[in-house]
């Protein structure tokens, strides 16, 4: 049986489609005006990317305490994929009111206008480490309150240290000493220093040599400088000597795993390694030191997240008040105790160092830490840098740096 297709039906179908398109357009532009239907009810939604139950419970408790004081309902949701869920919220004009923002994601959200810049309105704006305020400042606007932070330190396996005949006096404070102790710690099963193959570890050597990825305003890329080359050549030298290795070459996913499995006697990590050590490798005794100084002095990298507030939130005033309560020194010390993060306000530093003296070197790093570049497009450049760093051992440090210089400069130019 053959049924001829009516010629007239095709335009009719097209018309129906066009109608549907127009309806959809009306539907979505209609919501533009009321600025997020979910938030106008007065209830705050908080979306977090949690490291585990300890973090989730602590944030829920803190938010509940604020709700009780302020009389405003608030609900905490744990994201399974924070970037994706936030994107959906922004695109539908119905984002969560308060959420975690990483420095990587900051520039993108600022560029599309999703973030409410409230930093300067905070009562406690002056309490944060200046370095962290910088990390969340774009074009002289302080966007969001730093939630907590970490710096990199040198994590040392105590047992292997003693077995190699080393004492507390041998903790390296210069590159030469680092090279020497790594050599003493290296044997058939263990490599002296193991770390993840990425800029976020290798890059800690740049400030030690006096280098950086960009100039202070973030307008010029300064990747292919002599200082950075000296740093990268030093790392390469240690790898060629066999006293340093990437965790990936040791068969581990990250530096902490190589360290926990005792494949590496030292690693470069932040204070988050404490959680992994107590959960997965409780038997490995370790201690933390500041990263050794290079030719230009001490240097490390700082990592941080902030409490973002959506521009489309229907309840910004309450959201700011919630963030203020979440960033008080007392609350941050409670978070520090619950899930091991370091407070972002200087006033809490002394108390934190007292409560966990073994992490004092991480706190000390805050004074001289450098922020990884966070300009728009920088995250892609860094991931490209990481890809090239994987081949550092047999690669040409100069070629790697000059390639990254080109891509980073292009990203910075596009950003202006």
């Amino acid at each position, binding site marked *: 049986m053959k049924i001829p297709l009516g010629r007239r039906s095709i335009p009719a179908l097209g018309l129906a489609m066009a109608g549907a*398109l127009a309806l959809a357009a009306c539907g979505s532009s209609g919501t533009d005006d009321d600025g997020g239907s979910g938030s106008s009810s007065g209830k705050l939604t908080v979306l977090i990317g949690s490291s585990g139950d300890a973090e989730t419970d602590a944030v829920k408790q803190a938010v509940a305490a604020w709700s009780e004081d302020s009389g405003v309902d608030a609900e905490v949701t744990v994201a399974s994929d924070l970037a994706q869920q936030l994107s959906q919220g922004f695109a539908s*004009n119905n984002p969560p009111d308060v959420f975690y923002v990483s420095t990587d994601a900051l520039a*993108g959200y600022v560029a599309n206008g*999703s973030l409410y810049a409230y930093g300067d309105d905070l009562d406690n704006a002056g309490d944060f480490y200046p370095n962290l305020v910088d990390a969340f400042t774009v074009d002289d606007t302080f966007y969001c309150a730093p939630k907590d932070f970490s710096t990199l330190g040198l994590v040392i396996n105590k047992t292997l240290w003693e077995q190699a005949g080393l004492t507390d006096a041998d903790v390296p404070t210069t590159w030469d000493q680092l090279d020497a102790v790594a050599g003493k710690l290296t044997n058939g099963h263990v490599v002296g220093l193991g770390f993840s193959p990425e800029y976020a570890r290798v890059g800690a050597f740049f400030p030690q040599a006096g280098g950086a990825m960009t100039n202070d305003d973030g307008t010029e890329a300064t990747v292919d400088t002599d200082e950075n080359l000296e740093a990268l050549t030093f790392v390469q030298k240690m790898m060629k000597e066999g006293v340093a290795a990437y965790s*990936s070459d040791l068969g581990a996913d990250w530096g902490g795993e190589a360290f926990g499995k005792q494949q590496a006697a030292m690693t470069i990590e932040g204070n988050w390694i404490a959680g992994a050590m107590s959960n997965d490798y409780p038997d490995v005794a370790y201690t933390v030191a500041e990263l050794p100084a290079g030719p230009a002095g001490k240097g490390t990298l700082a990592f941080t997240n902030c409490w973002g507030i959506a521009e489309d939130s229907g309840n910004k005033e309450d959201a700011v008040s919630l963030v203020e309560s979440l960033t008080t020194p007392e609350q941050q010390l409670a978070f520090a105790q619950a899930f091991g993060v370091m407070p972002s306000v200087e006033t809490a530093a002394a108390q934190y160092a007292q409560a966990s003296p073994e992490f004092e070197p991480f706190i000390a790093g805050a004074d001289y830490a450098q922020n990884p570049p966070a300009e728009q497009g920088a*995250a*892609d450049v860094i991931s490209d840098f990481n890809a*090239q760093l*994987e081949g550092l051992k047999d690669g040409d440090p100069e070629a790697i740096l000059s390639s990254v210089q080109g891509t980073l400069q292009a990203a910075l130019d596009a950003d202006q």
Partner: protein
Amino acid sequence: VTRRTTIARGRTRDGWLFVAPAVAVLGLFLLLPVLMALWVSFSDWRGRGSPLSGDVGFVGLDNYRAILSDGGLAERDFGTSIRNTFYYVVLVVPLQTVLALGLAMLVHSRILRGRGFFRTAFYFPSVTSSVAITVLWLFLFSTTGSVNEVLGWLGLNGPNWFQDPRGVLHLLLGGIGVDDAPSSLAGHGFLGLTWWDWLSGPSVALVALILLASFTTSGTMMLLFIAALNGIGEEIDEAGLVDGASTWQRFRHLTLPLLRPTMFTVLTLGLIGSWQVFDQIYTGTQGGPAKTTVTPAYLSFHAAFESQQWGQGAAIAFVLFVIIVVLTLAQRALLRDNT
């Protein structure tokens, strides 16, 4: 107006009435999003509010230029993803087809006992969640995993599979003494990669994913081949037997030509599926090591959701669409010419 056309017109109307719900659903959830994505690929939408709102501007081919001809990082990333997926497709499609056909012949032959069991066993990977299998694969191919253990019995030192970014072709070339790019290959290139980079072959990590894809998809393809084999009928095989044809001759000159339509289906499904590979990358490697497992589908997701470059993300998706359509048409033309 004759009576006949009136009836036909009535039928047409009724027909449209019956398919209307399906058309509406497809239009709303398939056609409309595709059209919107097409618009996004020509716009400067950055992910906030509706892409159809007034403040979103038309930027022409800017997004396509960024990934195809700008000379920047976006182009290099796109070129890398095309290279990776090219090697992935070139290896996965023949592997899964041959494996599927082999399994189908095995399960189809009457010599094998317990055919039902084997059919289920071979089909099992296809119905298992690809996330679960990817996780299994990560364990199997870890440095101290079972695969390297078995290689160890053979006296081989297995690589650190999912962390090894070295290209297989580069390794082979290195084996015959070609370690560095000849200047003719290093100086020129396409899509931001030098010809030497294009020649790297799949990385060791990608090879593990290629094995994974062949393992999971061959079951489905086997099912298609079994259905086709059942449709051929034994008399043809018996006729060949009477004519004195050997097993190989009967397979090559009788079974294989009769399987041609199924072969086309299997190759097309394989081609489309492997160009679109995403979930193994998202759950398994996130594009690493050294970007050697980045695929266009993953890159599109990453550009949009992580970097807020929604226009570029959509543009990547449409270039991928064009690649798939062109290759499918080419494949169809090739298979037709052979008859």
